[in-house]
């Protein structure tokens, strides 16, 4: 049976993206629950958020590696000699499942560059899902408590630090404003401290700027 590597690649890409998304949102939840970044929590409680994070990672791994049981594909079917031109397109059995995903990238598996691209997209999506759910969760909590936990006005804290007690939507304008205010000073200060062979320092000298 002839199996087009492009068709295999499309199948792998979709499965890998789901895998990377579930695992990265899980890892994100564990990290933000440990460091108290409440604006990105999927639940209002640190302990539950951490357990949810672990569950999401395990779900991602389980779904990705067990999918060949119910999804038809070019699974290795127990034979490492098979390639995309010779392997059967079908479902894998339990005895084949451990090696089912071991498909060479020249036969439609994902190479490192493609994995990196899909992983980056999955992380961006995981971050925004966490930010949206975290914002809704903080708004609902602050409304229930009739307080303003979602809109603290202290502009000294920003970035992830600001997300400790502010929602993403409340934190973003403050962080961006602070960035715009600080970046020129920071750039000049860091440039002055940097190595004399710094590429940026040499470019700035070439551009005629004085120190």
């Amino acid at each position, binding site marked *: 049976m002839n199996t087009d590597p492009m068709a295999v690649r499309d199948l792998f890409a979709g499965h890998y993206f789901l895998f990377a998304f579930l695992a990265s949102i899980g890892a994100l939840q564990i990290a933000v629950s440990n460091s108290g970044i409440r604006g990105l929590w999927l639940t209002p409680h640190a302990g539950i958020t951490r357990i949810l994070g672990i569950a999401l990672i395990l779900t991602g791994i389980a779904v990705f590696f067990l999918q060949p049981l119910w999804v038809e594909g070019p699974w290795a079917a127990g034979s*490492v000699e098979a390639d995309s031109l010779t392997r059967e397109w079908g479902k894998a059995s339990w005895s084949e499942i451990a090696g089912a995903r071991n498909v060479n990238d020249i036969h439609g598996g994902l190479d*490192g560059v493609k994995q990196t691209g899909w992983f980056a997209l999955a992380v961006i999506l995981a971050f925004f899902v966490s930010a949206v759910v975290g914002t809704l969760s903080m708004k609902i909590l602050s409304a229930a408590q009739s307080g303003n936990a979602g809109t603290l006005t202290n502009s000294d804290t920003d*970035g992830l630090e600001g997300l400790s007690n502010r929602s993403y939507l409340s934190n973003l304008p403050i962080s961006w404003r602070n960035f715009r205010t600080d970046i020129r000073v920071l750039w000049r200060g*860091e440039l002055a401290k940097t*190595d004399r062979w710094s*590429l940026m320092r040499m470019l700035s000298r070439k551009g005629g700027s004085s120190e």
Partner: protein
Amino acid sequence: MTSLDANIVIWLNGLSGNVKIFDDLMRLAASDYLMPLVFSLGMLGLWFSGKTPAERVKYQLTMLMGISALSIANVVVWLFNIWLERPRPFVEHGDELNLLFYPPTDPSFPANPVAVGFAAATAAWTINRKFGWWLYAAATLFGFSRLYAGVFYPTDIVGGAIVGIVIYGFTTYLRRFLEPLITSFVRLMRGLSAA
């Protein structure tokens, strides 16, 4: 050296076929998807870790160095591949090996997956010893599983580990030539509330 290398891979791979569940675990660990995702998740987790803003910036700068080291390690492995073109063990000793993994078509030395794993683990180790040791263990398991599967020689694994560690050190050294670009990137991420 070459014959010792071959003898080790033939002996180790010869243990396969006895305990199916162990072979299956090795097939999973050798997968192109599982361990690379573990390294990536480790780096993602560290980006958002840190209890204070200063600690967080240190973590994030280190993770950027780690990501850069992964890319540079890939290039260095590719250059070694072109230079040495060492055939895979199953090419030279195919009749003595029970291959548990698909037969890769690129050269054997140094082991690319191990180089990437050790670069990520070294980055993590410099800021969090305990977590770093876990990632070193994962990278070692990744290398061992590929050795057990019959697709690398032991010296490929050792070579990959050395490339990963050395390239991370080199990338950290290179950072001084790219400042303040790196710090400004972290500051931009902070402006987007992502750092």
